[in-house]
């Protein structure tokens, strides 16, 4: 079924194991209540065989959903996941079950991902029982037509590596039997009977019971992940967080998968234990030739363990490329902001991070245009306002966010009725809001007495004032949609209008999704420097 490429670095470079094309996962897609939650909103990327791809982003950005969709714990809404060239999103039934042996997942929380009523041995053994492991696939060397009977089944001629458990070389009525190394049995555990009639028939019988073989395999796995064989009969509550995570890893590796999704495997652990688990994951990858998708929000961990990194925001991959170059010279404004927000374990760094304002928008109602446009520190501003200072822009952006929030806030029936009747509601104090937002500016009056709405408006330039008066009018009459439209109309730009394309940002094939990479605009770096000066994370 699969080709395992031996460790030829250059061949491995191009060898794609998982290919994701236009993958979307929407929740509530068919519901009557309106818009779906767009958890993953169209992502494309490849994962190469033997590499570790990192997936980072804030909570709610869709990284866990994406990981779960890749191993088919969630059904994709649209798009395809090609695993070794075969689309797995449409698999079901036995085909899906067979494929699942190849793709496993380690969950974030070691406290909740292990059943406390099962022993460690039962937990690690469960996938083996489910898949009736070992299936004992047999290749009869040089005779693809040979029939295999007994406890084993024949494999096709293309199968290699771990898909061939036993190789039988027939010479007359004698057979030379070889067993794959990683199985806990040897040739002496098999009774092989050859009947070379018109077609060769090989009868393979497993002498120990399957249960015995599984137990032996589990014990080996436990030892491999740094536990002891005797831990087989203990219960998960008897172990610490780090050890529980080791059990989770052993369970994921039980079926000898090629691809493992690691969903925040060290986030719940202390830093010293975290280091041990990261070292273990690296060792296992080398030993078994595993391919990892490493989901995390801790960028230092990702930088340490990953070859390439995808940065996700609101269901979209914002930037994807080699870990070192992405961390050293981020291209996308979101990557810049994320890196600059990490507190460095070095008190001598006089850092001044780009602090993003606000929170990510709801995936049920993502912004039009670029997903990051509501918080972007390098957002393109319309040319008409070239002279407007950064401070006023920050206030306009704040107002924009408030209007968005208000449009999204739930209104009770009572509130709606009061609005219709023109009575006061919690959405009434519009002018106060505008005064609050614009009152902080240098150009507007300081003293409380002068901070009336009119005085505030007079202090603003004419081309800013006009749209703001309209916006306030709309808000006063509870038309948030119209207010938002007016704001976008006056102060919006390319960023609010169209979703940016991916641009190549270095020779290593790194891509980033931002209008700023278009030569028509200034690039991200210089803009951030102009607006934020010497910020951290550079």
């Amino acid at each position: 079924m699969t080709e395992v490429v031996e460790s030829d670095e250059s061949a491995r470079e191009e060898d794609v194991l998982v290919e994701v094309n236009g993958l979307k996962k929407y929740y509530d897609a068919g519901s009557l209540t309106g818009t779906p939650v767009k958890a993953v909103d169209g992502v494309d990327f490849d994962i190469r065989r033997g590499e570790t791809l990192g997936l980072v982003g804030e909570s709610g950005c869709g990284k866990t959903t994406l990981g779960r969709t890749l191993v088919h714990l969630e059904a994709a809404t649209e798009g395809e996941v090609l695993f070794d060239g075969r689309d797995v999103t449409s698999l079901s039934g036995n085909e899906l079950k067979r494929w699942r042996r190849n793709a496993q997942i380690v969950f974030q929380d070691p406290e909740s991902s292990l059943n406390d009523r099962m022993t460690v041995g039962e937990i690690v053994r469960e996938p083996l029982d489910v898949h009736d492991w070992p299936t004992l696939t047999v290749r009869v060397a040089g005779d693809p037509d040979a029939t295999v009977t007994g406890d084993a089944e024949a494999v096709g001629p293309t199968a290699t590596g771990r898909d061939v458990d036993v190789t039988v070389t027939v010479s007359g009525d004698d057979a030379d039997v070889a067993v794959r190394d990683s199985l806990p049995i040897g040739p002496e555990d098999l009774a092989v009977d050859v009947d070379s009639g018109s077609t060769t028939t090989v009868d393979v019988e497993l002498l120990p019971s399957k249960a015995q073989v599984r137990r032996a395999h589990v014990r080996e796995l436990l030892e491999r992940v740094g536990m002891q064989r005797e831990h087989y009969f203990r219960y998960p509550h008897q172990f610490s967080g780090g050890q529980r995570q080791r059990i989770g890893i052993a369970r994921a590796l039980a079926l000898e998968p090629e691809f493992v999704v690691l969903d925040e495997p060290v986030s719940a652990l202390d830093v010293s234990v975290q280091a041990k688990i990261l070292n273990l994951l690296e060792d296992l990858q080398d030993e078994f030739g595993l391919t990892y998708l490493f989901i995390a929000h801790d960028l230092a961990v990702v930088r340490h363990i990953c070859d390439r990194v995808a940065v996700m925001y609101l269901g979209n991959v914002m930037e994807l490329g080699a870990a070192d170059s992405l961390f050293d010279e981020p291209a996308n404004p979101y990557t810049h902001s994320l890196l600059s927000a990490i507190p460095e374990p070095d008190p001598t760094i006089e850092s001044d991070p780009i602090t993003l304002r606000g929170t990510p928008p709801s995936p049920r109602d993502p912004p039009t245009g670029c997903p990051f446009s509501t918080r972007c520190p390098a957002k393109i501003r319309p040319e008409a306002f070239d002279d407007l200072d950064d401070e006023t822009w920050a206030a306009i952006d704040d107002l924009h966010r408030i209007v968005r929030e208000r449009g999204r806030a739930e209104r009770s029936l009572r509130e709606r009725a009061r609005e219709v009747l023109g009575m006061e509601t919690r959405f009434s104090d519009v002018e106060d809001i505008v005064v609050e937002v614009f009152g902080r500016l240098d150009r507007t009056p300081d003293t409380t007495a002068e901070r009336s709405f009119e005085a505030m408006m007079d202090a603003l330039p004419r081309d800013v004032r006009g749209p703001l008066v309209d916006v306030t009018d709309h808000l006063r009459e509870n038309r948030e949609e119209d207010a938002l439209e007016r704001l976008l109309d006056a102060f919006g730009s390319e960023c609010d209008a169209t979703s940016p394309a991916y641009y190549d940002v270095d020779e290593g094939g790194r891509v980033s999704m931002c209008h700023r990479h278009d030569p028509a605009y200034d690039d991200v770096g210089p803009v951030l420097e102009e607006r934020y000066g010497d910020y951290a994370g550079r």
Partner: protein
Amino acid sequence: MSQQPRRQRTASEPVLSVENLRTEFHTDKEVIRAIDDVSFDVHPGETVGIVGESGSGKSVTARSIMGLVDDPGRILDGSSIRFRGEELVGKTEDEYRDVRGDGIAMVFQDPLSSLNPVYTVGNQIKEALKLHQGLTGKAATDRAAELLKAVSIPDARRRLTEYPHQFSGGMRQRAVIAMALACDPDLLICDEPTTALDVTIQAQILELLNDIQDAEDLAIVFITHDMGVIAQVADRVNVMYAGEFVEKAPVEELFANPRHPYTQSLLESIPGRGDADERLQSIEGDVPTPHGAATYCRFAPRCPKAFDECDAIHPAHVDVGEEDVEHTAACLLYPDDLPQEEALAIHQEHQTEAERTGDGDAQLVDENTPPEEEQ
């Protein structure tokens, strides 16, 4: 989180002064000495960090100061917690409530569980204002809106009428900070306030705390497991291990010149400080559960530099820094300018002293059974 020059310790009286704090939990099976002989001062306007792994006693320290240690836990005799010169140990619940309302406030790790889901955010802030400042009605609403504005929540008046579930995680933590500020505190205890938040939101909250501290000359005790956060926020740091402070130093000094083997190992296990291709350093074993006063070094079983005497002598804090910096570590390797016998003699003397001055249960301790070891 713009960086001010590190605050100099003023000659002023400390806001909080903790001395020889010992907290034990008595269960049917065993006695757990969660905090053993912890001492530190906090001055106005400074941030004192407490950093350590889970189970090291950081949160119990915070709860002891707040008077939130419930049965079966108790603070042992001989412990002293003085807030603005007033002794807190031994106060009744009613007396403690006045202190909490009038000077010490605490921000917990999980903002969702520190807010009541069935009351609006405004309601909860106003409750704090009513209890601690006697404000009611419109005055309370106005003050609550001001507090929300002070923690940078836009559209504050509308937000007051919303419930915690309508707030995002960062916004909830801001609301909790607003409630803490309602009693106009001199001392704010932050127990992992940003651990449940994303980095971009964490940066916002740290910036907010820094602004509030500057505006109010607030003293902050900041508890975290994250060395990165501690490096950015703290002026002085106490490294905690198994209920004890093992090293105390100003923050730059601690990161530039860690002396205790535990601090050194902790710093080495952070990814990203060294070469990305190198294997991470890790500390073998787990944090042990202390069962009483120790006659040995609690870190010895995991310590790469341990020697025989580490199992026999309990290390005392000795100066390990330059002349003018307050940098101490509790490790038998120090003072390293003396021959080893003399250094050991110093620690031995401290231990005999401690045993003589009433900590009489020192001889009961050898039941310390290490928990399941991480292999």
